[in-house]
């Protein structure tokens, strides 16, 4: 993944966390706040390498924890695990398929919050959990399933619009041109 790609990815993580903290509409309407970092991690896991995955997990996770009542760094571990898990199996995944992207987004958005909750509870914290947590995990998973293909399209559009590509070299050379006719 090139430097501009990494910058886009980190900017997306920053905006995602900020919107989650500034806009409480989803919580108000659906009773659950949506977290799009796992869906972003699906993109990083399939399109990037270990550097992109680590950067996204640390930047996104620490940004998230800095404005949450979570202990600092607890969101990083599930994001890293999901990112490297997807990266390890990327050769067996049809990364360009909408269905694959949505399924991975759904799974990642269920696994990340569930793993964070398990880590919190095993660390002696008492987060708000109950039957409603299953509803919240369901809403977060569905949101992740929708967001993951959108991230792929967004980054593909940004890639085409903003990143300069060197024109491919042709085999044509003017000094080797065979001129026909009388001259």
């Amino acid at each position, binding site marked *: 993944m090139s430097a501009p790609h990494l910058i886009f990815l980190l900017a997306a993580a920053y905006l995602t966390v900020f919107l989650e903290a500034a806009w409480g509409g989803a919580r108000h309407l659906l009773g659950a*706040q949506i*977290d799009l970092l796992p869906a972003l991690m699906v993109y990083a896991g399939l399109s990037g390498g270990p550097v992109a995955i680590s950067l996204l997990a640390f930047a996104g996770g620490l940004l998230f924890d800095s404005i949450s009542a979570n202990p600092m760094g607890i969101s*990083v571990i599930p994001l890293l695990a999901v990112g490297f898990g997807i990266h390890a199996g990327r050769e067996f995944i049809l990364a360009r398929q909408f269905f694959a992207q949505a399924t991975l987004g759904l799974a990642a958005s269920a696994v990340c919050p569930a793993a964070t909750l398990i880590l919190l509870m095993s660390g002696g914290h008492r987060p*708000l959990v109950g039957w409603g947590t299953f509803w919240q995990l369901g809403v*977060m998973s569905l949101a992740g399933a929708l967001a993951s293909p959108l991230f792929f399209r967004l980054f593909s559009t940004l890639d085409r619009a903003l990143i300069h590509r060197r024109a491919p070299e042709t085999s044509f050379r003017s000094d080797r041109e065979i001129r026909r006719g009388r001259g």
Partner: protein
Amino acid sequence: MALALVVLNLPGSLSARLKLGIGSVFLPMAGLVRSADHLAGSASATVASRGDLEQQNEALRRENQELKVRSTLSEGLERDNARLRQLIGWRQRQKLQLRLANVVLREPSNWWLSLEIDLGSRDGITTNRPVLNADGALVGRVAAVRLTRSQVVLLGDPNVHVAAVVENETRDMGVIGASGPVVNGLVELGYLARSANLKPGQTVRTSGQGGIFPADILIGQVVDLPVEDNSGNIARVKLAARLDALEAVWVLGE
């Protein structure tokens, strides 16, 4: 992964500093959103009709006059109260100051109830100060203070417990505890006596016990009859403050 574990196990003070440092990257963005809100507000004010503004102005003037009269009356009552307290040797109540704060960010996770306000240690905010909504109903308490911002944990969060009293004949006491994970404005009122005589609609206020929340702050209303639990009876209370619609809050100081 090892680095993540190191960050997770940092000492408390270092972790708090890291939180402050990283969290401050959202300040420009939060400021931008607030400026945009102000701009939208002032733009809508410029297009409001003169008639509407005059009507609004008149209503506010009347409300202001009424509040002035009430304030004068309550000052008299306050003086009477202080004199009577002195006569019977009760401890004088401390004067409480209110500081208005804007809500800048909300909890992004689903398993805590908290928000960030734009007042910090620079503004004299300290931890455990009670926080009220615009109507004076209890919202929560200050949990962590940074230089320019503070974190407020809301009623219903597992880290907030409030000693409460029900306004009925027996003045039943209990403790406001956690809510469910889906925010719907309902919290548990636990540790009630088995003989507690609660009825739906009765008002619940802070009892003043516990040393954090002063007495007589409105919490909410009982919504159903108590049920038995291991630690006494439990009833549900509908909070007076709408926690999902907070834009500005009052922080109580001494």
